[in-house]
């Protein structure tokens, strides 16, 4: 308890906490739709673009945020367009853009200031990065993101689940995609300097993936992602303070731990569910990912007495 009080007596840590919580909440919520739409890599690509933009801005002596936000927003538009037009594989396009932006940043920096601690702090994050203005900006951003998710929740679901159906029934799909891209860009620029360009995309991907292990409904996944992101961030920050480890990496490790925990819980639950008697015609997925055939299901049903739910011991288990 006293340790937390001690931590919060530093103003820069308080700023880092508030800003970080807000940014990771936004990243997690936006991450659910990005991951489900198979745009997971967009976060990674945008953070590298942001790294390039910030390096150029610093080399030219401009203030980093006003330069990098428009550049990254543009990059986000561009990446979405590529994905939608389908002329190029989106994963290839993102990999190309992120590598190019990273190299531009590195070349510009080494030509001007040289590879200093500044560059390393952009790559891996610095806890001192959150300024008062950044905290305000992240407060505004999270208000917008939360407002969008509360008011347009059902439309976001419709667009994420099935773009063509949503479009056919009159939902303005490209508007939602654009808003998502812009908000993701701002989130990444804001979080990048604290979490690091190499690590910020984990805030987008991890909470959604973790929640998808356990929750079977969209609502569950969204809520759980938000909660998980905030909890993991707080634990990670405290850990980084206690063990003097870099903040970004610590948060990512806590996220990884949460993922493994949920994954194990899912495995255990699956084992239990698998041994319920199957209704005919209902297909179940085995933990290995393969589908249970109807024939197998019938065989199981005849072997097992009706209504028995108890799991068998590991030795008896037959892999389908």
């Amino acid at each position, binding site marked *: 308890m006293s340790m937390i009080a001690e931590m919060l007596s530093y103003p820069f840590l308080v700023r880092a906490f508030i800003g970080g919580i807000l940014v990771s909440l936004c990243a997690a919520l936006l991450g659910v739709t990005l991951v489900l739409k198979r745009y997971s890599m967009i976060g990674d690509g945008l953070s590298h673009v942001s790294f390039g933009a910030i390096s150029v801005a610093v080399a030219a002596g401009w203030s980093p945020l006003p330069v990098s936000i428009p550049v990254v927003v543009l990059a986000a538009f561009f990446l979405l367009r590529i994905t939608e037009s389908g002329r190029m594989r989106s994963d290839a396009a993102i990999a190309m853009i992120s590598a190019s932006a990273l190299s531009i940043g590195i070349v510009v920096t080494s030509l001007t200031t040289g590879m200093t601690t500044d560059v390393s702090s952009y790559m891996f994050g610095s806890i001192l990065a959150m300024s008062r203005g950044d905290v305000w900006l992240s407060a505004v951003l999270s208000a917008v993101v939360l407002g969008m998710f509360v008011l347009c929740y059902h439309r976001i679901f419709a667009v994420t689940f099935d773009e*063509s*159906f949503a479009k056919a029934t009159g939902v303005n799909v490209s508007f939602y995609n654009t808003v998502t891209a812009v908000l993701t860009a701002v989130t990444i620029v804001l979080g990048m300097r604290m979490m690091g360009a190499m690590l910020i995309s984990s805030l987008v991907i991890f909470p959604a993936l973790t929640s998808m292990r356990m929750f*079977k*409904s969209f609502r569950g996944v969204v809520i759980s992602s938000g909660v998980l992101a905030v909890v993991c961030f707080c634990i990670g920050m405290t850990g980084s303070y206690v063990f003097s480890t870099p903040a970004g990496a610590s948060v990512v490790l806590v996220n990884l731990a949460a993922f493994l925990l949920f994954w194990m819980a899912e495995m255990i639950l699956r084992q239990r569910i698998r041994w319920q008697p199957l209704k005919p*015609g209902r297909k179940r997925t085995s933990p290995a990912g393969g589908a249970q055939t109807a024939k197998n299901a019938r065989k199981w049903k005849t072997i097992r007495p009706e209504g028995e739910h108890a799991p068998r011991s590991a030795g008896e288990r037959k892999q389908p």
Partner: protein
Amino acid sequence: MSTLITCRHVDFGYENYDAVVDLSMEVDEGDYLCVVGANGSGKSTLVKGLLGLIKPMKGELTVAEELRRTGIGYLPQQTAAQRDFPASVYEVVLSGTLSRRTARSPGDAGMKEGTPETRFQRRRPFYKWPFYSPEEKRLAASCMEKLGISELKNHCYRELSGGQQQRVLIARALCATSRMLILDEPITGLDPSAIQDFYRLVRRLNRDEGVTILMVTHDVAGVISQANRILHLQQRVVFFGKPEEYRRTAAGRRYLGGEDR
């Protein structure tokens, strides 16, 4: 029996490429129209055109007033991302009712008060956006009832079999409208018994519920006994008419096989 959709010499296409040329056909209420043709023959473009996602380049496309108001139910081809989407069946079906919120012309003349079709076709106030109204929930429940998936309500979409997923998507489409359904290659990836189930279901919807069906498919032989119109596309219309006549044409014999001369 009224005509729902009329095409008169319509061209559909993209910037510098016409996918469908000089199409004339009509869809009447209660029809079961089957659209066949090779890959790239313009079937999907036609569907997009009928849904209003692309404008006709030439010609005249008339959509009946009642269809314009409620929209057309649509069953798109499944994407890979959907197969492992964490969503409950109820969430998916409910999302179909959204289209009724964006009523194209609120306060339209001829809009009847009180029928479930039109009751919530007014713009909802801003603060009610996050919630589904009781009418919407009732509609979703009745659609699930119709398709026999009520007991799957809280199941996860990705854990259902292909046939059950199709039923869920039809229920969602029926939430959007109960007048007309457009099915885009619905049997892809289903096993044979699921395909037969699916055909029975569609026929039941068509006969008992009076839903007009427009189905794009490669499985001509499976549908020809049920459809009452066949449209064979190869950029232009190769054939449009009754299935019995289609069997007699050269194109029909090629697609249906058998009966060598």
